[in-house]
């Protein structure tokens, strides 16, 4: 399999994740879609590491996993607080700042 196959898979996954972030109205599913996008980026990193014969891509994908873990923990904590304050997980109703 060539690099292009992996990059196309990664692109499809990223597009699905972006669609989820933009199109769904549930904070939990938006966070799940962000995970899909991060994983698509990880797949690209590892594919390029293999293609370029350099371990750097794999090391950076480990960093991405670590950042994703802390991002999810904080995101879910914010979701819990928002649910306690507003009683909903719909981001359309979270307009306290009237943005």
């Amino acid at each position, binding site marked *: 399999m060539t690099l292009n196959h*992996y990059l196309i*898979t990664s692109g499809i*996954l990223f597009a699905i994740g972006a669609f989820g972030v933009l199109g769904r109205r549930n904070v*939990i599913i938006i966070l799940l*879609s962000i995970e899909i996008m991060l994983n698509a980026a990880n797949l690209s990193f590892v594919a390029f590491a*293999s293609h370029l014969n350099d371990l750097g891509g794999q090391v950076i994908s480990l960093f991405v996993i670590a950042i994703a*873990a*802390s991002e999810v923990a904080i995101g879910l904590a914010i979701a819990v607080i928002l649910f306690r304050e507003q009683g909903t997980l719909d981001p359309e109703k979270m307009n306290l700042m009237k943005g």
Partner: protein
Amino acid sequence: MNHLEPIFFYAFSLIAVLGSAIVVANKRPVYGVLALTVTMLALSALFVLLKAYFVAVIQVLIYAGAILVLFLFVIMLLGMAAVETSQRQRETKKEALFLETIRILKILLPIAFFTELIILTLAAKDAGIGTRNLVGTVEAIGQALFTDYLLPFELVSGILLIGIFGIVTLTQKEEELSLRGGPNGPTK
């Protein structure tokens, strides 16, 4: 296993794309989390195909083992009725679709798991003699982490520490804050 690689690649890519499509398409976050687990396992198998063994193991441990369990805990904490926002009305009409999704997941999960086991055993047999000579073993990754990437590695630990501080601060209740003389509490 060179002749098997395209079959495994297309199979796991298809599983990953289908899993993430289910995450985005279905209405129930619990099913989304389970479908995302399937996606993670398939992606981990793709990492094995790329000979990134350590990243594949970390993918299963951290994502399937930690992050998705955290999602399930939060969904449990908030309650099933709470997390299903604004789709309650159309639920009865699409009940059959949800059951179909679960049925697909029941088939997908074991397939992803067992095929991954097969691919791992196949890959372990001839590790390092494939077309690619770059192998992401624990030894190679550790050597790169502690020599070339030492500063980013330490910075990541700092970010994790800041994340812990953030979560502890965020999840404190207001009474606890006011007891300590917080912004709204008694300051005298």
